[in-house]
C-alpha cells in the first residue's frame, strides 16, 4: 500500500464484505458503499490477472467517480479523461500527455482489499486477514435489504431454510451455528442432508444492508434456486416487518380503546 496515497479515515469496523468473488470477474469494476463513522464510497475492481483493489470512488483530476471506469491489463482507467491507475493507486498514465510520467503525488486513495474464501473484503486497518469462519462455500447471491443489520440478524435467528430430501424440497428449521462481527452461519441438519448458509453483512447506508450469501458446495441447481427464492421471501419479511407490526397495533387499539 502506497503510504503517500493513504489518508487516515476513522472507521469503526475492521473488515467489511463488499462482493462475492464470482460477481467481480477479471476486468470488473463496481461501486461499494460502506456506512462507517465516515461513510465510504469506494470503487472495487479486479485486474486482468485477478488482483482485487479498492480506492476512494473519486478521480483526483476532476472528481469523476472511478466506478464508471474500465480495466485494461493491471490498471483502472477513469472514464472521463482515461487517466490510468495502478493497483497501488498511483497514476501511471495521462492520455492527454502520453509522453509524460505522471508525478508520484497524483493518485487515488487506497484501501486494503482482500479476497478470502469466495468473498471480497475491504479494510481500513493494516490487519492480517478477515475474521470469519472458514466456509469452503460457493457463492449464491448478494441481496440488498432496506433494513438495519441488527434487525436482519434477529430475523435470521428464527428462519427456515429449504432443504432437499430425496426429490422434494421442503422448509426446515435453521439454527445459527456461528456468528462474528461480519458474518453468520445458518445450518439445517436433517436426516437427508445438511445445509449451511454463510451470510456476510455489509452496512451500505443507514437502513440498508447488503447480504452476501454463500451456501454449502455441490448443491443441485433446483435447491440453489429454492435458496435464492428463500432469500427473496426473507427480504420481503424483513422489509414488511414494521408494517405488519404497525397494523397489528392499530387493530389491537381498535379492539381495546
Amino acid at each position: 500500500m502506497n503510504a503517500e496515497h493513504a489518508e487516515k479515515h476513522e472507521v469503526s469496523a475492521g473488515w467489511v464484505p463488499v462482493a462475492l468473488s464470482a460477481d467481480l470477474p477479471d476486468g470488473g469494476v463496481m461501486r461499494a458503499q460502506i456506512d462507517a463513522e465516515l461513510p465510504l464510497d469506494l470503487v472495487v475492481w479486479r485486474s486482468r490477472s485477478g488482483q482485487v483493489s479498492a480506492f476512494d470512488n473519486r478521480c483526483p483530476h476532476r472528481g469523476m467517480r472511478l466506478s464508471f471506469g474500465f480495466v485494461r491489463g493491471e490498471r483502472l482507467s477513469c472514464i472521463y479523461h482515461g487517466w490510468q491507475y495502478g493497483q497501488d493507486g498511483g497514476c501511471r498514465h495521462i492520455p492527454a500527455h502520453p509522453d509524460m510520467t505522471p508525478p508520484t503525488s497524483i493518485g487515488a486513495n487506497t484501501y486494503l482489499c482482500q479476497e478470502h474464501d469466495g468473498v471480497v473484503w475491504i479494510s481500513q486497518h493494516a490487519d492480517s486477514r478477515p475474521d470469519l469462519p472458514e466456509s469452503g462455500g460457493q457463492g449464491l447471491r448478494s441481496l440488498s435489504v432496506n433494513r438495519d443489520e441488527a434487525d436482519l440478524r434477529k430475523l435470521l435467528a428464527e428462519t427456515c431454510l429449504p432443504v432437499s430430501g430425496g426429490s422434494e424440497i421442503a422448509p426446515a428449521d435453521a439454527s445459527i451455528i456461528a456468528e462474528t462481527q461480519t458474518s453468520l452461519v445458518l445450518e439445517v441438519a436433517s436426516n437427508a442432508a445438511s445445509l449451511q448458509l454463510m451470510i456476510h453483512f455489509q452496512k451500505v447506508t443507514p437502513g440498508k444492508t447488503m447480504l452476501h450469501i454463500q451456501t454449502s458446495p455441490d448443491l443441485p441447481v433446483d435447491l440453489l434456486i429454492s435458496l435464492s427464492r428463500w432469500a427473496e421471501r426473507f427480504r420481503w419479511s424483513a422489509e414488511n416487518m414494521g408494517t405488519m407490526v404497525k397494523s397489528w397495533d392499530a387493530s389491537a387499539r381498535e379492539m381495546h380503546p
Partner: protein
Amino acid sequence: MTVSDVARNDWYPVAIENLLIEGQPETAVLMGETLTILRAADDQIKVIAADGSECPLTIRYGHVWSSIGQPEHPLFDIPEADEEGRRMVDCGPVRVKASPLRVVENFLDIAHFPFVHTDILGAEPHTEVEPYKVEIRDTVDEVWATKVRFFQPQAAKSAEEGQMTDYMYRVPAPCVSILYKTSPPRPGAWDVIGLFVRPISEELCDAYAWMALYDEDSNQTDLVQFQQMIFLQDRSILENQIPRLLPLDPKMEIPTRADTTSVAYRRWLKRKGMTYGAQLVAR
C-alpha cells in the same frame, strides 16, 4: 444560500422563443425562483416573477433571456449569429443534476473526447492535447482559449471523414460557454456552438445548446439531435463528479496543461466573486 449579486444580476436563458405559444405560458426556475414566460395577444413576450413583477428581458440567439436581478450590462454579443448562410439551431434544454459551473467547464474540455464522445469527436490513440493559448481578456472580462487543435473522426453532422479540427473557446459569462470550430464544409470559417446554462439550484440546471453553423445538406432535426447526442454523452459524467459544487480552491483537484482553460475559468470565477455553484473550501 443567498444568491450573490454577481450571479443574481446576470442574464439566463428561460425559454426558446419560437416554441412559445400564445395562451400557453411556460415556467422556468432560476436559482430557486419560479418565472413565468408568456406570449401575450400582441405577440409581446413577458417574463413574470412569482410576486407578479416583470423581469428584465432580452430575446437573442433564439432564446428568451431574463434575470432575477437587474443586469447592468447587455447580453454578450455573438456576431456570427447575424451572418448570412448560417443555420441557426435551437437544441432544447436538457436537465443535469450538476453545478452549472461544472457543466460550463466540461464544455471547455477536449481531453475527454476520445473517451466520452468515442469515434465522433475523438478516438484513441489520438489523445494528446497539444499546448494552446489561454487568456482572460480584461477589456471584455471574458475567458478565451485559442490555437486549440484536435483530431476528430466526425467533427460535425456535416463531416464526411476524420480531420484535424481547430477550436476556440470563449466564456462571456459564468454560465455560458461558446466554442468555435472548423466548419467542415467551409474550412476557414467557424461553426459556433453555444451552451447557455440556467441554474435551477446550485446542483441542478437546464442546459440549452444552440448553434450557428454552415451546413446545406442536413435537415434541422438531424442537426439538433447530433448536438443532443453529444450533450447526453456528457450528462452521465457531469452527474457523477464529486463534489457537485465546483471547487475553486486550486488544491482540491489536479489539473494538467490540457486543463489550462478550466484553470483560467476557475480563477476568473473566484476573481468575479461568482460563488453560486462553487465551493471555496470543502463543504
